């Protein structure tokens, strides 16, 4: 038992933080927001130069090894900059699903290009998808970074398929999305050819666990950034002849942010460790992490706007980037209430 980063994990954290802080600047992110919601050059640099994109996918499945703790470390660093990158859809969801549930041929064909950033994948589920003879009809209006995806991994929560974006019967329409750093697309499948993954249970399990943790870690990084930036502002902004951070009403709100964030940090790394170690409480941990960290982020982002006063409400200030990302993380992949209901059923001893 040693619930602290190892030296190697500390090094990954420092490398990832430095990379995103230097490159995922507000200016670049805003350029991406005005376009397709992705900083493609940054994504390629992350995948190719930093070589951290294969983390969390076993080497036997063409990944870089290591575990979800290391993946969470990277996602936390990206989240701190609200980076406009397809990490969640392409790697945590699609990449994990193919690596865990794909055939060897499917893994060899798709995992390396996803990790290298040569290909980008989107992911969605549609409970009412019609599947017959390898043809799929269905869709989703909430496919993150779907407009730039080359491949979709889709599920009806029982089976899972890969569908190429350029296949016949696939229509992709970009949506005007509140969070422009991770815009949604409307993907429609009309008798589109799908290639089935042979082990959908493994695929679904791996994708959900990794994605819940990545969402939570991103939220943690975002929440900490909201606090850090607000703390800096509290020290420099003077009103009534004193820094506004000297007022107790202000201080206490900052303290409340920190209290939540420290719990979110415990939640994220508990969940990542529990999954990596195959602990019995892993299922509860990922539901706890996703719901708690996303709520923490939203609260901190809202507080960031409030504690900055008028400037925090402007387009020019970055507060709204965090606020919109936070809102998106709260609802994505199950609301907080849905995750907590799962935990309620577990502790009340009801069959899932």
């Amino acid at each position: 038992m040693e619930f602290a980063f190892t030296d190697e994990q500390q090094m990954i954290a420092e490398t990832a933080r430095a990379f995103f802080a230097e490159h995922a600047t507000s200016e670049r992110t805003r350029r991406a927001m005005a376009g397709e919601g992705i900083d493609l050059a940054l994504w390629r640099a992350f995948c190719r130069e930093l070589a951290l994109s294969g983390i969390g996918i076993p080497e036997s499945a063409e990944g870089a090894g290591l575990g979800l703790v290391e993946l969470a470390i990277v996602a936390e660093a990206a989240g701190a900059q609200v980076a406009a990158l397809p990490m969640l859809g392409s790697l945590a969801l699609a990449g994990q699903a193919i690596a865990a549930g794909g055939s060897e041929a499917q893994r060899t064909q798709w995992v390396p290009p996803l990790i290298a950033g040569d290909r980008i994948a989107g992911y969605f589920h549609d409970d009412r998808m019609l599947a017959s003879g390898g043809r799929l009809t269905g869709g989703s209006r909430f496919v993150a970074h779907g407009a730039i995806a080359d491949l979709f991994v889709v599920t009806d929560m029982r089976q899972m398929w890969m569908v190429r974006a350029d296949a016949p019967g696939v229509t992709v329409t970009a949506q005007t999305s509140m969070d422009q750093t991770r815009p949604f697309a409307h993907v429609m499948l009309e008798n589109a050819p799908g290639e089935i993954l042979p082990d959908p249970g493994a695929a679904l399990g791996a994708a959900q666990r990794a994605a819940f943790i990545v969402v939570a870690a991103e939220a943690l990084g975002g929440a900490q950034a909201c606090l850090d930036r607000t703390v800096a502002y509290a020290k420099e902004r003077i009103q009534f002849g004193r820094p506004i951070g000297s007022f107790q009403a202000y201080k206490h709100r900052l303290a409340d942010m920190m209290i939540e964030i420290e719990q979110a940090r415990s939640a994220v790394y508990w969940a990542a460790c529990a999954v990596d170690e195959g602990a019995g409480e892993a299922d509860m941990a990922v539901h706890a992490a996703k719901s708690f960290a996303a709520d923490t982020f939203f609260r901190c982002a809202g507080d960031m706007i409030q504690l900055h006063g008028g400037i925090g409400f402007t387009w020019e200030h970055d507060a709204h980037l965090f606020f919109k990302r936070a809102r998106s993380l709260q609802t994505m992949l199950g609301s907080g209430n849905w995750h907590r209901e799962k935990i309620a059923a577990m502790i009340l001893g009801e069959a899932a």
Partner: protein
Amino acid sequence: MKLGFSPEDELFRQECADWLGGQMAGEFRDIRGVTKLTGSPERRKEWEQQLAAHGWSCIGWPSQWGGRDATLAQQVIFAEEYARAGVPGRVNHIGIELAGPTILTFGTREQKQRFLPGIAAGKTIFCQGFSEPNAGSDLASVRTKARLEGDQWIVNGQKIWTSLAHISDWIFVVTRTEEGSQGPRGLTFLMMPIDQPGIDIRGIRQINGDAEFNETFFTDARCPADSLIGAVGDGWRIAMGLLAFERGVSTLGQQMGFRNELDEIIAAARSNGAARDPLIRQRLAKAEIGLRLMRYGALRMLSQTDHARIDGAALTYKIQWASWRRNLGELAMDVLGQEGEISDHRDYEWDTLPNLFLFSRSDTIYGGTNQIQRNLIAERGLGMPREPRGSV
């Protein structure tokens, strides 16, 4: 980063569980499940000595002083198994967790020899004399005075909220030894025997009807000149050092007590149908999440190797658990409904859950109120300007 325990640690867990379980099924079965701090005091003093006789009294201490040099993981395991076995809280908690480590860190060799064996053996029960009627949140404004006369300190004043003073043998007090000094300067940390004519203890009845806190009056109370820890005027530094020990491993045992409370609420919700209410279900899940995060926060805090840095988890821990438990008390009552507002006892005595509801109102006050905690977090954790001191 690793959460799992090693096979050796799991063996140690079994050893702890076997011994504690055996005691609670055997010789000490009469105190199993006692949750009130004031319950069965004499038997619980005997229990302290039983722990000591079998080497379980203070496993984290150096073996030279009666401990086992236990690793962090072993201390965590013992604290968890202790509470899991339904063993009541340690009546000498203050001696083992606060006085002992303070003497180990700041005491002279002679003081270690004088005090540590008795604490380790469960024969010297300690209580803590910090707060005063006019020094609550503003702890540094203590007025209890001590002056050196010949080879003795003479102490006059009043302490309050001295938990378990009525069953303790010794009290450590923060006193003002420099005439006219203010705030944290001029304070001295003294260890005093309680059984003397100059010390008078009166219980304070609390909102739950119980009386585990006391007022302690000092009227020309005495202790030998060499009873001070550190130097004259060093009291504030010692007191602050001591408070840091409070964030130690014992928090994990405390959490197991919380676990038992939450489990009782879950059982009540299942049996009375409250578990069908979606809002109650959300609150139960939130309570469960909060408890788990407390455990992992504590493990992070304990795993922190860089003690120079004030760790975020350590700074936020007090307000986190206190607020969680107060909410738990409210949840308990919402699950019980009006049944929670009547008692089967003839006296004003309450079962675990209604008692939790009442008692937990003190959790967010003692040991630093939530408001003081937020000041500390903002100032020490986030570098905000300090609160200005008034001059009234």
